[in-house]
């Protein structure tokens, strides 16, 4: 980022944003300082503006809607709402170790403990108690993939008195070739999408502009197409991008899907991957090992993946979130747009793989390992993630038995460095890669 741009963004972070935005401001300033050393690419611009958009929404009295990581916010954008993905806090604060004070406050308040309730949601409870996180005007969530989301949003509601809407996510598949196919699933999701729109219209006292909705869904499609092409490019050997690249696409889709910014950011990274392949550039020079990481990153340790790359010449191709399987759809009519929203909910990262029977996750692992020519699988499993943790072993067995690929599974809290330390994690990975894989 050049000096002038840096000063411009730094200046926008000056002055008081209000107590409830103090954590938000901390994250913004941390982000700008980190980005200072980087190229001012569309991702940096998108996230810098995301922070500022929330501040401006507060000033202008524009409704803020909070939602979890498992939903594309395009519909909210089409309705001129300001989306605020809740996990921006827990993921954003983790590398700074700033989740931990709020996790401790949450513990003292008696809302769960680390092995029971996911720390993707818990820190904000402590932050609300301290008055340092913005209380939204509306909340939306789906009770999938996990109970932690369902319960946390009910708790948020009790703490903040903010109204929420829930969309159920069914257990079945809409693909006719899938053994768990249900022919009515899309109709059900479309009906619920319309219920959500009705609720939003009522709460915000406005009608959805259908033309704008369709335009927004076209932008969603463009970004989905870019991500799809990017993930295809990662199948190249050697992988053209370093380990965290796919996760950036996920963050774009989870926070900005339906905006031109998300289209630009996903195009930028896709083009970079394509250019690297053309120029013979690998994400990890002299790539030796290709790792599947079918769970989330360990957010508190930003040095872990670079360490894996440098120490073992290994590349982590995609995490479960970066493995973004939502396809572009026909959005030529409004009814098709609803269908596209519905399929987006069903297929979204982690939702598509974890909302149904274990086969959803097992097939995801098998396809991932086959398609990306994987040498080893590493699953750093969040202790509290009951739905995923309890199927990792059968998934690992399937991958070993059908494809001969080994898996390392270990418990961790990706949001709290005190539970399992970086040193312990590195020791486990090191032992696995040296003793089993290399």
């Amino acid at each position, binding site marked *: 980022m050049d000096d002038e741009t840096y000063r411009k963004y730094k200046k926008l972070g000056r002055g008081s944003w209000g107590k409830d935005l103090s954590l938000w401001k901390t994250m913004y300033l941390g982000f700008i300082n980190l980005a200072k050393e980087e190229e001012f690419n569309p991702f940096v611009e998108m996230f810098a503006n995301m922070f500022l958009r929330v501040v401006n929404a507060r000033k202008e009295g524009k409704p803020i809607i909070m939602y979890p990581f498992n939903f594309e916010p395009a519909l909210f954008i089409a309705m001129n709402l300001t989306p605020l993905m809740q996990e921006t806090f827990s993921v954003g604060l983790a590398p700074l170790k700033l989740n931990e004070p709020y996790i401790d406050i949450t513990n003292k308040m008696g809302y769960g403990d680390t*092995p029971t309730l996911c720390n993707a949601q818990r820190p904000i409870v402590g932050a609300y108690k301290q008055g340092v996180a913005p209380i939204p005007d509306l909340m939306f969530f789906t*009770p999938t993939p996990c109970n932690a989301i*369902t*319960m946390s949003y009910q*708790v948020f509601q009790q703490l903040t008195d903010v109204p929420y809407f829930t969309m*159920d996510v*069914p257990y079945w598949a809409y693909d006719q070739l899938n053994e768990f196919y249900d022919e009515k699933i899309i109709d059900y999701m479309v009906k619920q999408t319309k219920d959500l729109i009705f609720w939003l219209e009522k709460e915000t006292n406005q009608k959805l502009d259908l033309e704008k909705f369709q335009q927004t869904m076209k932008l969603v499609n463009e970004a989905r197409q870019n991500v799809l092409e990017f993930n295809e490019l990662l199948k190249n050997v050697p992988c053209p991008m370093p380990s965290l690249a796919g996760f950036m696409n996920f963050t774009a889709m989870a926070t900005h899907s339906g905006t031109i910014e998300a289209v630009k950011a996903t195009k930028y990274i896709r083009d970079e991957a394509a250019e690297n392949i053309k120029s013979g550039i690998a994400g990890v020079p002299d790539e030796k090992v290709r790792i599947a990481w079918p769970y989330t990153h360990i957010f508190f340790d930003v040095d872990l993946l670079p360490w894996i790359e440098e120490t073992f010449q290994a590349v982590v191709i995609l995490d479960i979130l970066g493995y973004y399987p939502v396809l572009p759809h026909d959005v030529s009519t409004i009814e098709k747009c609803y269908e596209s929203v519905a399929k987006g909910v069903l297929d979204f990262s982690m939702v598509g793989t974890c909302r149904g029977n274990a086969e959803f996750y097992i097939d995801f692992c098998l396809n991932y390992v086959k398609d990306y020519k994987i040498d080893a699988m590493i699953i750093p499993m969040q202790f509290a993630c009951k739905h995923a943790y309890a199927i990792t072993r059968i998934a690992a067995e399937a991958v070993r038995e059908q494809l001969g690929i080994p898996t390392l599974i270990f418990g961790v809290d990706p949001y709290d460095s005190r539970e399992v330390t970086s040193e312990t994690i590195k020791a486990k990975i090191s032992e696995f890669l040296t003793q089993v894989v290399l």
Partner: protein
Amino acid sequence: MTVMEKLSQAIPLANPWINNWRNEGKNVLGYFCTYIPEEIIYAADILPVRVRARTCSAGDTPMGDAYMTPTACSFTRCCLELANQNQYDFLDGIVSCNSCDQIRRLYDNIRFKAPFPYHYIIGVPGCVSDTTHEWFKHEISKFKESLEKNFKVSISDEKLKKAIRVYNKSRELLKEIYNLRKHDNPPITGTEMLNIISAGMSMPRDQFNYLLSQQLQELKEKEGISDYRARIMIVGSMLDDPEYLKVIEDLGGLVVVDSQCLGTRYFWDLIDENKNPMDAIGERYLSKIACPRMAGKYPERVDFMMKLIKEFNVDGVIFQRIKFCILWWAEIFMLRNKLKDEGIPFLELEREYVLSGAGAMKTRVEAFMEILEANK
């Protein structure tokens, strides 16, 4: 043999009632949650039996620990353990639902590691609306079709209506017994009540109703219990081990009511017998007093709990939560604030599925009893 003794015969996993049923050449299905519509199974002339795992030794669940993982609740770990040991070999299949993350993954692990001849999972919506009601009817219709196909039976509306009547009868009788517990001198302990409900989930329902009617009559004529120190409500999830309640009642706390899976949340709401049977079943199960997994129903759950506290003249509430249970930790967190506001004393007990550490529990319950007595 007293009626209670007869009912107690149905409490073990494999019991004479189930054996007799099987000896008639009929099937038995195990199920896991209060959201499973037993009526549909019963209408197929299949015996629905709630899967429990009380014979599992606490801390001795290597299979459960390995596959469900050590941070899953001990109920699910125990069930997988017993399934792996073939202790459910009296079952012809299992029916589960996505009631919580751990139960739905237990279903997966059973299918992969300790399979039965038949498995089915019902996708219960995570919230209640007109749209999700329609969907749930679709879900239970698919379940009905699956039973018909796999067990080569026909489930007619007439059979469903009959099953609804039989199960509603149980609900009415259980409610009548609960009403007796509102008295100053209730004729039955919480431990006995839990045994009755457990028995009902493990024997043919018409025979259960017959015994339950007799039990009700006996209780009506019985002199009530007066030597208790406080009237207790138990709130929480899957608790079928009467030893927990016995610890409380041995210390003078008489359990007079509950909001539990094996309690009011199981039987409180009736099915409308005047509607199309599948519609009525769907409506009842999705709208019944909800488990915390059902988003948006917290206010109703609170109202229900407060109503019971008042009607049963409760002195104090004991929350029981199986370690690592997401749903109940969050629910208790919310309920705690409510009870504080209402000035109702409460105690929170974290527990394993099967009783262990009774000493520590006794100490805490005794201290709670003293607080309740001091409040009188």
